[in-house]
């Protein structure tokens, strides 16, 4: 059964005010197009969970979509701080729940595997454990040693951008695979955006590459370039210049509002956004081909 739909319809149907959202992708394939669509549709009071909130959540926070943030690294990777989020954490106008990367991912792992909690070895650093009551300790019943545990994270909706999938949602990704699979299995609903829609036979020619199976997917949206200014391995490069530019934009709230007006509210969809980017930017982000050697599954 095809789950093909527009991103507008998928967001309207599966992202509700007050939901917990996990927009997946560790630096790679961050689903910016979906974030912008959520802003356009004016969602409110969302709990936004991501290991690295990155620019996508900073834009959503700036646009007034968020009530709370769950994160493990709240910086602009390689650049500095996320100024808007930082200010709101400092002045207390945004709720937050903080983890380390591993404990954040362990929460998803527990959610994805149906476990009541995930244990981790102690790290000797206990200040974050003391600051966030979601961290607990239990005694290993075999050795008596205390381990640190975190509860499952079960988002209402996970949004995952992929390189290719079929119309039912069997999705294949390569490059950095971060936490997309765990986020998808942990969530109640899954929205996919994809660079390419391919025939089922293409998926079945390389089943090891399928990270998300169709049966957990609710909506499939064909949205090329959905992860800009993040990147999609083999399709286009990370727009590092924009990550640096965002640092300058966010020095001034007026510039942030102008940017949102022009690049989010002012465009209908991702196609319009991509075409609006200067031709030299689109050219700069092109990547040369580097194919993998084919593998032989054998005819049985």
């Amino acid at each position, binding site marked *: 059964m095809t789950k093909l739909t527009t991103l507008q319809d998928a967001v309207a149907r599966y992202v509700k005010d007050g939901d917990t959202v996990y927009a997946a992708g560790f630096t790679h394939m961050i689903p910016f197009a979906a974030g912008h669509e959520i802003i356009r549709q004016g969602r409110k009071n969302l709990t936004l969970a991501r290991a690295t909130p990155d620019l996508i959540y900073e834009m959503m926070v700036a646009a007034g979509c968020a009530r709370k943030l769950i994160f493990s690294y*709240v910086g602009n990777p*390689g650049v500095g*701080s996320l100024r808007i989020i930082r200010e709101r954490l400092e002045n207390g106008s945004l709720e937050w729940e903080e983890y380390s*990367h*591993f404990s954040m991912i362990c929460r998803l792992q527990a959610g994805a595997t149906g476990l009541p909690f995930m244990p981790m070895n102690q790290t*000797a*650093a206990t200040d*974050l454990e003391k600051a966030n009551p979601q961290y607990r300790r239990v005694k290993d019943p075999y050795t008596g040693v205390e381990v640190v545990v975190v509860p499952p994270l079960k988002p209402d909706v996970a949004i995952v951008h992929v390189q290719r999938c079929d119309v039912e949602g069997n999705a294949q990704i390569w490059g950095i695979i971060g936490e997309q699979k765990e986020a998808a299995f942990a969530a109640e609903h899954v929205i996919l955006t994809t660079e390419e829609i391919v025939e089922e036979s293409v998926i079945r020619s390389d089943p090891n590459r399928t990270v998300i199976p169709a049966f957990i997917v609710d909506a499939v949206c064909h949205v090329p370039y959905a992860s800009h200014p993040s*990147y999609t391995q083999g399709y286009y490069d*990370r727009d590092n210049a924009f990550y640096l530019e965002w640092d300058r934009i966010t020095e001034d709230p007026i510039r942030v509002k102008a940017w949102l007006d022009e690049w989010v509210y002012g465009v209908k969809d991702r196609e319009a956004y991509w075409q609006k980017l200067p031709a030299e930017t689109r050219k700069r982000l092109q990547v040369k081909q580097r194919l993998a050697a084919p593998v032989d599954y054998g005819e049985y």
Partner: protein
Amino acid sequence: MEYSASELLIINAARLLKDGDTVFVGVGSPNLACNLAMRTHAPSLLMIYEAGVVGSRPSRLPLSIGDPTLVSGAAAVTSMYEIFSLYLQRGNVDVAFLGGAQIDRYGNINATVIGSDYQHPKVRMPGSGGSMEIAGWANRCYIMTPHQKRRFPEKCDFVTSAGFLGGRKQREATGARGGGTQCVVTDLGLMEPDGNGELVLTALHAGATAEKARENTGWDLKVAEKLRYTELPTEKELRILREELDPQGTYR
């Protein structure tokens, strides 16, 4: 040959790596240090990035730890859960470079908040990322930072990642498997932990003095009995750094 303070940091950090080490690499200066080591004395260095990439051979200088250049040509890519569990928690990481706004007397690191109240921070920083577990479980942790008093307080406002807590025995009591902070490389010299886990000045770079290091440290910095001088950056190290690794001079 002339060299800058950051080149001095990078070159001295690179020399801490051993051939065959498995190293958890961060972006920026640590990335340059690892790539420099690989092109000089440590050709079989295995570089792991927290985004889940193993055995990277980056062909350009990555801005973020998730850059696509880390993937193309790498030996393996894993999920985040796997990189932190199979690789780090299991004990397969020899070395890691860490950074933070504050590093205290016992090598503890603060990258979370400035101020004594976590809920109402004076300054909010990015937080742990991978560093809490890296500092806990890597065999050796190294820190690269300019030698400034505000960066070296007696005690961190918040311990994001553990050095030796209040002394080596305290860390050992937690059972954390890693060896803790083994060296802090600054633009003045090197600080290494003594028997109790306290950072002491063990080496100076050419032109630096113990007095200057003590003046720029927030605790009463002890000077090792056998204080040594680091070797000058070589022409080869500087040439690789400038011509091959950072031709645009981003980190010079």
